[in-house]
């Protein structure tokens, strides 16, 4: 009978393989939300939000409908400016230390850096090609070679290239729901933002399309900081590194996703993630 010595087995090496790719390095803070109060007219929508969001990570906002998670998301690229009567009564949001609501911050420039993907996929009724380069066209880019390159890079980035490369000049509305949503993601990354906000990007998609978008989110976080609002607890669990739970306009709990789903610190969080309310 043969014996092998203890040191030569793979068991001792097994622990050097990190089981979670991103747990290893420490993340930098990119967005700081401080004492943030937000109003729709006289109605307060967000109460004293304090939150630090990590760079190149996926952060999920969860909570029941009307809890303010989408509102906060839309504050990050000032989409709420477009709604009449909204106001920030206290606190602010800083991205890389710059207050996004400062006088010298142009919301147009901000939105080029902070892209957004919407709940309902909204490809424009143009060709796939024109959809992707819309942002660049707006910025006045006319160099055909550059536009072609951006289209390919963005569509590849959105894992859509292989599916549409033969019909770039057909309407974007001819795509399936999941493809449309990925087209919207391609359109967003074409202007090379730093942050991508996703407002329930999969709520209208079937499970396979959802899985593809989630897969994509996992890929995108190598290059972008992603903040995703979702109603699906599984989605938050699968995709995100950190999760923030909101309820009635307040931030109830913010922690590693694993902690939120394993050992939430707040009974309300536990009740929500276990499906007892919301």
């Amino acid at each position, binding site marked *: *009978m*043969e*014996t*092998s*010595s*203890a040191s030569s*087995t*793979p*068991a*001792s090496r*097994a*622990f050097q*393989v990190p*089981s*979670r790719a991103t747990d290893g390095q420490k993340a930098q803070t990119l967005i700081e939300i401080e004492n943030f109060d937000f109003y729709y007219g006289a109605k307060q929508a967000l109460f004293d939000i304090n939150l630090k969001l990590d760079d190149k990570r996926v952060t999920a906002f969860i909570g029941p409908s009307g809890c303010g998670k989408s509102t906060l998301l839309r504050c990050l690229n000032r989409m709420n400016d477009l709604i009449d009567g909204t106001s920030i009564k206290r606190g602010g949001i800083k991205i890389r230390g710059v207050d996004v609501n400062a006088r010298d911050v142009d919301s147009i420039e901000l939105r080029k850096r902070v892209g957004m993907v919407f709940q309902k996929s909204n490809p424009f009724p143009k060709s796939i090609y024109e959809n992707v380069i819309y942002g660049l066209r707006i910025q006045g880019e006319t160099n055909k070679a550059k536009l072609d390159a951006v289209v390919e890079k963005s569509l590849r980035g959105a894992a859509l290239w292989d599916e549409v490369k033969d019909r770039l000049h057909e309407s974007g509305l001819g795509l399936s729901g999941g493809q449309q949503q990925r087209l919207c993601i391609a359109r967003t990354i074409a202007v090379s933002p730093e942050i991508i906000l996703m407002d329930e990007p999969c709520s209208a998609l079937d499970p*396979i399309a959802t*899985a*593809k978008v*989630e*897969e994509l989110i*996992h*890929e995108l976080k190598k290059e972008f900081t992603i903040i995703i609002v979702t109603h699906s607890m*599984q989605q938050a*669990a*699968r995709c995100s590194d950190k999760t923030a739970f909101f309820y009635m306009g307040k931030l109830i709990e913010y922690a590693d*996703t*694993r902690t939120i*789903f*394993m050992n939430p610190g707040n009974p309300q969080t536990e009740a929500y993630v276990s499906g007892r309310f919301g």
Partner: protein
Amino acid sequence: MKRFFDSELETFRSHLMIMGETAIRQVRDALKALVDADVALADRVIAADDELDNLEMSIDDEAIRYMNLRAPVATELRLVIVGMKASHDLERVGDECTTIAKRAVRLAGEPPLKPYVDIPRMANIAIEMLREAMDCFMHGDTDKALAVVRRDSEVDAINKQLYRELSSFMIEDPKTTTRALELMFISKSIERIADHACNIAEEMVFLAKAQDIRHRDELKKS
């Protein structure tokens, strides 16, 4: 379709495989330490038990994380549950090996009671059972797993035979009692290892066919 967290399952599987290998190696080393009266090897076996303990914790951690965040269903769910159970069995195997090694250290200073024939035979059957059970994990061969379960009676028979034999030693010559008792416990440990191998085999049947064959002899025969 590939998913980004498929690699987590791969890691989980490979950890379980490594644990199986480690447990088999431990059984082998413990037996060798006993037969060769090799104290140093016995000490190494005792020390190496930490490896199994760490692997069990790591596998549990991965399983819990997977269930927590990935909401597994069907085969994945069975894999995660079976992995947790099997890792526990393998950890118990490791504990039995530690016991054997400790007793081997004590027996090393004394003259052998009789030549080691039955115990290595028994241990080799147990090792084979463990290996077969782990093979089932790799290949999903349920027939092999059922064969493992059936072989358990061989080990039990040898154990009983050794028990009688060692009892008669003690009756004939009370001076042999200590050594005979040590050997009896070692035999019992090997028998326990075979039981764990059986459990693992049963779990592998559950993994492959989602069929619980525990305590149902009519299923084991088929």
